């Protein structure tokens, strides 16, 4: 059977990690390529790079990062943040990324999902969704609303509707980030994750709120997520990916070992 995937997320600005990453050996790493290699060796199943650079110079640097990552690690990885055109997607894919994550731009221009899926295949297109809880209204029947621009701008779009619409348009996967849980380290938003995951036919990566291996266990079982995104719990040497996988494995969640 398919293993549940554990996916570290690295935020990059101008080719450097936005916050240094501290590993057990107490070494600070600012280079995304080094960090990616360390997680690869610890057993990460995939890696997500989120480029928060706005400038075109920054984008060129990111392409170089993608190339260097692709030369040294041999697992799939995705790149998101600010990608708007097919040409930009093509450059990132040719540089070696498997997947492109589309977020705010896809809300404003949904057709980019279909265009990307047609050009590069559905498996290439990850729909990134930032979601927060909202009062249930006729417009937001699920009680969860899509927000964009890093969670600052509400859209009045229902999260469940958008997930299904994204699948219909050709997204191959959904990365579902709860703005409410993000940064709390109190656990993933299980209700939201379970609702989205059981109402779409494509894999769902849960994101936001991971603080302990228990949180991953919950979201991969009760939350029915196919994969779990993690950040600070591994970036600040509280856990290694192998420790997290060991814990999940003890609790009968199938994860990939390192062989």
């Amino acid at each position: 059977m398919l293993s549940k995937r554990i996916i570290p997320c690295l935020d990059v600005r101008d080719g450097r990690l936005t916050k240094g990453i501290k590993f057990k050996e107490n070494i600070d790493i600012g280079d995304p390529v080094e960090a990616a290699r360390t997680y690869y060796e610890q057993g990460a199943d995939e890696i997500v790079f989120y480029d928060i650079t706005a400038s075109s110079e920054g984008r060129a640097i990111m392409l170089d990062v993608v190339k260097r990552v692709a030369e040294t690690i041999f697992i799939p990885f995705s790149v998101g943040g600010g990608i708007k055109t097919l040409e930009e997607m093509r450059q990132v894919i040719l540089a070696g990324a498997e997947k492109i994550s589309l977020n705010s731009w896809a809300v404003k221009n949904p057709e980019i999902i279909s265009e990307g899926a047609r050009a590069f295949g559905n498996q290439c297109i990850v729909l990134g969704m930032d979601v927060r809880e909202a009062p249930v209204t006729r417009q937001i029947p699920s009680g969860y609303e899509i927000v964009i621009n890093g969670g600052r701008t509400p859209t009045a779009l229902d999260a469940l509707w958008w997930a299904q619409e994204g699948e219909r348009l050709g997204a191959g996967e959904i990365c579902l980030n709860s703005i409410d849980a993000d940064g709390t380290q109190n656990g993933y938003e299980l209700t939201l994750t379970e609702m989205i995951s059981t109402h779409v036919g494509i894999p769902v990566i849960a994101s936001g709120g991971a603080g302990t291996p228990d949180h991953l266990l919950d979201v991969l079982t009760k939350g029915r997520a196919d994969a779990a995104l993690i950040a600070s719990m591994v970036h600040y040497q509280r856990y290694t990916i192998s420790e997290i996988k060991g814990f999940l494995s003890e609790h009968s969640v199938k994860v990939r070992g390192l062989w």
Partner: protein
Amino acid sequence: MIGIVDYKAGNLTSVARALAFLNEPCVVTDDCKILDRASHIIFPGVGAAGTAMANLREKGLDDHLRLWVQNNKPVLGICLGSQVIFDSSEEDDTACLGIVPGVVKRFPPDVRGEDGPLKIPHMGWNSVDFPRRHPVFADISRDAEFYFVHSYYTAPDDESVVAGWTDYGMRFCSAVARGSLVAVQFHLEKSGRPGLTLLTNFCRWRGDYAE
């Protein structure tokens, strides 16, 4: 020199990068003359079967692929490359290369696992049971997993060509070996260490194989 067949089917650079990492010289080309001189052929691919077959025919690569296998040149098909070696594919109802008898089918929509319905595509890491002692599949731990992304699977007429089985709500053929041809549904170039071991095995293989 390893020849990678370029038939405009997705991103071929990841296989070339993995070979570079293993210090195996390679060339990515659609030129049959250059590929004729290669010691080994890798036939990767992501995308749809219909477009892939059209591109292969346009360049005459279809005939050459059959010829290379006939002449015992080691050939490795990956993902879409492991599908179009069969007679036909349900994807776009496509007539394929016919090198291995059998068909390519779509996963049924009602495929179920222990916890309920399974998602299609089959995307992520899964294990492969290698039932045969084949040089390309040697030195792989029983617990090794490989990275898959696909909605169609291969169904050979003759199960004796199956070199790998994988379970996704149903048991399907995830690797094939016949003569100098091996083919894998998973992306060995994105499957970490066991994937690189397999790739190394292929590069060292002379195309001979006895059960």
